[in-house]
């Protein structure tokens, strides 16, 4: 912690930080600016909009906007599907990780390696068979039709993070609480849950982002607004005329779907950090 950097090192760190920040944030900023350009200014070539306009936002959010129908239903689908996928993944992963951390049973390693195997399986290779299967059994273009493949993405990483997290919880605390006069349930709730909560929380956020950001499943397994999530819906935006690119509307939609992610991260920054660093500190 308290190491003092030389001026030279400080300068270098500052330069690197700025380069990384610009590299990461410039595209976001550029999209943000584009979203405020009116359709005639899209090709203006300037970074800042010549005239600030909310035309694009009106288009996707207000009634009568050309993309409103498409966007709002997609937003609803995205929120619903991602939340449900997250809840299921976290509940299942918590139970699974608890068993892996606490119990010794045959096949423990198999579960972990299988989970890892599933998560490294390329999404593109499953999409086509899944498309055919879903059409045959009637899951195509439905919420469950997306929730199930999302679970295949979120479950493995949830199981791994939670298992690693649970292993670091001193389970002797549960016994100590029981000796102190707690029932088994009280011991779990008062001694273990407060320690496990940050880990579960972090995992939930990670799982939510994975589901929220998916594009491949979203575009392949849906065909109407019944289940199409936002990242897929953006591809279906149309301009005012055939010759006009819907760049402005897409930018506005991109900004809108980024907001919940940013808000979540800012709100729960402390929990995420303490979740990620829990194991590093003894005590």
């Amino acid at each position: 912690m308290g190491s003092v950097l030389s001026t030279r090192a400080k300068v270098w760190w500052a330069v690197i930080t700025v380069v990384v920040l610009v590299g990461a944030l410039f595209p976001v900023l550029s999209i943000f600016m584009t979203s405020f350009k009116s359709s005639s200014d899209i090709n203006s070539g300037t970074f800042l909009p010549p005239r600030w306009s909310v035309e694009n936002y009106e288009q996707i959010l207000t009634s009568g906007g050309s993309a409103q129908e498409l966007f709002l239903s997609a937003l609803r689908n995205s929120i619903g599907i991602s939340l449900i996928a997250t809840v299921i993944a976290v509940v299942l992963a918590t139970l699974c990780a608890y068993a892996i951390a606490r119990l010794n049973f045959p096949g423990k390693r198999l579960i972990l390696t299988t989970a890892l195997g599933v998560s490294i399986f390329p999404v593109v290779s499953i999409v086509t068979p899944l498309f055919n299967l879903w059409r045959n059994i009637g899951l195509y273009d439905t919420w469950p039709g997306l929730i199930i493949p999302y679970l295949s993405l979120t479950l493995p990483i949830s199981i791994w993070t939670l298992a690693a997290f649970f292993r670091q919880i001193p389970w002797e605390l549960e016994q100590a609480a029981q000796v102190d006069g707690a029932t088994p349930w009280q011991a779990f709730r008062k001694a273990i849950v407060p320690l496990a909560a940050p880990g579960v929380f972090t995992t939930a956020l990670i799982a939510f982002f994975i589901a929220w950001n998916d594009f491949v499943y979203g575009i392949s397994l849906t065909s109407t607004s019944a289940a199409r999530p936002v990242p897929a819906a953006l591809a279906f935006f149309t301009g005012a005329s055939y010759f006009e690119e819907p760049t402005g509307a897409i930018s506005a939609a991109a900004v809108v779907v980024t907001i919940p992610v940013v808000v979540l991260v800012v709100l729960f920054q402390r929990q995420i950090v303490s979740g990620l660093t829990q194991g590093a500190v003894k005590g």
Partner: protein
Amino acid sequence: MASITLKDIVKRYGDGFLAVDNVNLDIADGEFVILVGPSGSGKSTILRMIVGLEDITSGELDIDGVRVNDKAPRDRDLAMVFQNYALYPHLTVAENIAFPLRLAKGKHSEEEIRQKVERAADMLDLREHLDRKPANLSGGQRQRVAMGRAIVRDAKAFLFDEPLSNLDAKLRGQTRTEIARLQRRLGTTTVYVTHDQTEAMTLGDRVAVLRRGVLQQVASPRGLYEQPVNLFVAGFIGTPPMNFLPGEVKGGRIELPFGEFDLPESLASAVGDRGLVIVGLRPEHFEDARLVDPEKKDRGHTFEIQVDVTEWLGAELYAYVPFDMHESVKGQLEELDRELDGEGLRTQFVVALDSASRVRDGDTTELWFDPTKMMIFDPETSENLTRDDEEAERIETDNVEDRRRSLERAQKQEAQV
């Protein structure tokens, strides 16, 4: 406060491993009993069975005469201090100590809890740390918080599971005396598990020595030291440990690795018609022949020996003397060494001499020892043939008397404060 009785307690794990074999132990109300033994002797398992964290395979465990075998830990009303303290990291020191009180819903008012926590904190010198989190405390402070959590409610008994093994040597010594003082002041029945025989000797009213799940001997520290029942107890108690030497008995004389001596009358009868015995001699029963009073010298024997290594410690001097082990008892003594967590490096015996002695590494010197102090062990059964039951009985009676008096003094002092 309560008495704890273990009757024929057996613990067999699912894989068939017999961790505790038929242990019988009576712990009186207010007594401080130590369970001691090398690793794997089943001492922690017994403690965990008493507190209810481990099922009892067979046998009966009574607290205050009531069978508690099937009671959950919370219904046994015992307090335990864990080896790694098991503090709740998300709670402050005050809340950690108050935890058992808060669990007993409705029993204590907020004000009562505060008073009890403060009283415990004062006893353990934790007053200024009450608002801190365990992560910000030193090892010794954490250990005291764990003790605070145990003493804050009036549990029937305290159970300690190697509470000092994570502390450094100096702190261990201080905390040890602190535990002794606390227990005497509160007069609460205490069971204390340790593998450290110094802790066992200094803390316990009575010490139970375990070996591979079998209880070897339960006695006062002095009883164990002076009248051990077998080789194992004799070798486990005392630092440096007792020396075990092969002794060949022939016509009233005994041949030890460093010479042949007359066997005293009292020992000869214990030996009987055995030809080979194991002789136990504590390091402090040897002396530098030049420093022994002439009068005392006549009572013992002197012999010439070459010293290998010496260690001068200020108060005394340890000298190490290598010797050749007799083949027929070699196996048994090596096994004993392994059981006592030794490495079986070389056969040597240790003598503790007066620090004024000028014996140094490699010297050939004359040592003196008193043959009546010899303990004779049967090489087959490893039983102590020279144990004096009457003397052992007397030591135990004295011990009970001493303990009663010191408890009374402590209570009287407490009343004055």
